[in-house]
């Protein structure tokens, strides 16, 4: 649902601006390819790994952290700085907590000998 919406808006843009920049086209290509990789990478998974996988990929989605780091630079208006710092805190929690909890979960599983 959201995906389609995203695409719709993307085209909508194109009209609005009379064609997005060359770079946007490249970024969209990257996006599409990454989506394919994401689809293909996930194969049959034993139920026991569902939760760790969920939690691990959730940690990866904390990549917003990079965006957060970039969002609040020196000399930005205070408002921006506040938002940015909040973002950094939240994203860091997601990342650090996510990978840690995944590690703990996985630690509980034994490989079949």
């Amino acid at each position, binding site marked *: 649902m959201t995906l389609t919406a995203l695409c719709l808006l993307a085209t909508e843009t194109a009209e609005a601006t009379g064609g997005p920049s060359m770079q946007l086209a490249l970024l969209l290509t990257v996006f599409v390819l990454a989506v394919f990789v994401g689809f293909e990478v996930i194969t049959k998974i034993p139920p026991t790994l569902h939760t760790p996988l969920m939690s691990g990929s959730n*940690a990866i989605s904390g990549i917003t952290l990079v965006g957060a780091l970039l969002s609040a630079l020196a000399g930005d208006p205070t408002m921006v700085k506040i938002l940015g710092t909040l973002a950094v805190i939240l994203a860091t929690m997601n990342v650090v907590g996510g990978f840690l909890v995944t590690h703990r979960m996985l630690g509980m599983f034994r490989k079949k000998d």
Partner: protein
Amino acid sequence: MSPVWVELSYLIVIVLFIMGLKGLTHPRTAVRGNLTGALAMLLACVFTLLGTELFDWTLIAVGVGVGALAGGILAVTIQMTAMPQLVALFNGFGGLASVFVAGAYLAKLLSSAGASNLGADLLVATAASGLIGGVTFTGSLVAFAKLQELKFIKDVRFPGQQALNAGLFLACVVLALLIVRQPGHANLYYWLMVMVSLVLGVFLVISIGGADMPVVIALLNSYSGLAAAATGFVLSNVLLIVAGSLVGASGLILTKIMCVAMNRSLTNVLFAKLQPAKGSGPSADEVYANVKATSPEEVAMLLDVAGRVVIVPGYGMAVAQAQHAVKDLTNYLREKGVTVEFGIHPVAGRMPGHMNVLLAEADIPYDLLIEMDQINPTFEQTDVVIVVGANDVVNPVAQTDPNSPIAGMPILEVHKARTVVNIKRSLSPGFAGIPNPLFAADNSLMLYADARQALIDILKALREG
């Protein structure tokens, strides 16, 4: 180090992320996969910090410090049984972070570049990450509350709910378009849209039964990935786009896989109008007309003469932390030459693999844990089944009553065994909130007690008698 170098170094990070994700899908490589992912994330941050112009280091130090501390403590101190809701929580944070990043960036650009210079593509991306991020945040919070079984949260269902959701979503889209059309007021519209999306997130999830939360979390996880990707478009940052869409896509697949495991369709999970549990089927009183209670001693006698015993753990074992008691009983019986196996239902407990985790923690040999499909045929030849705080996953109604909330969910057919001993504190229902005819079956006995205590008593009785 020039930004372009960062771009190239991002390539390494991307590869690592993919490797990590791939690793997480196979039992043998899962741990390494997770570490790879973490390494990738670390590199991503390092390269970013090295690569770009003057940061406000104090702010970043504070932010990272606080976040790492909070996240770390939560992750380390949390109980096993509470991990799923913790994941939900983290996921929500990720979503909110996207909202803030996009918002901050928008505000910055408006103040510096000025409205007129903002490309529509950028504005669309901003809107997208605001929208998706917002939904993810509140949706995850609701999921968290439900898994935590916070009292104030109920499965809210009312006519026209879908219509309302559609309306809210439409409102978001309209506001998104306004952002694009009138960049002058972008800030205003953006935060308005975020507000609406927050509400939308609540209503999307609130109507979904807690039993389906893992699926919902997987889905929201995929959303937070998409939000990150959208943010990536805002900053035209490849890394965010790739990592985000990786998670977005794989999360979607995982969601599907999990639905299959609970045999539900995704739409069914998201939009199914289950009549509230109370209404469905006969009332508890009718079902539990003649239930036979039992005592640890009686159970001990049954076990004394049993040749094959199957233990079916459920959420109750987790609550009672009874896994070690289970282990002691198992060891005793096996020394006596009794065959003991465990029937593991894919959704027993509150997270997939919940039971495996607990039993592994108690050092119960991995090869005693039998998956549902293997164990079901063996119940006929089983003398005693001990149901340790399981309920829904052994509820025959799933097979008999098509309108029950758990209709169609595959179950462990313990009722086919000679005798079934159900250890639970009362006749109160399980997660799905429905009565369980199994407890009233002729071959079924109730042992009302805390699971851990009950098992200890049984073992004591065995040793004495």
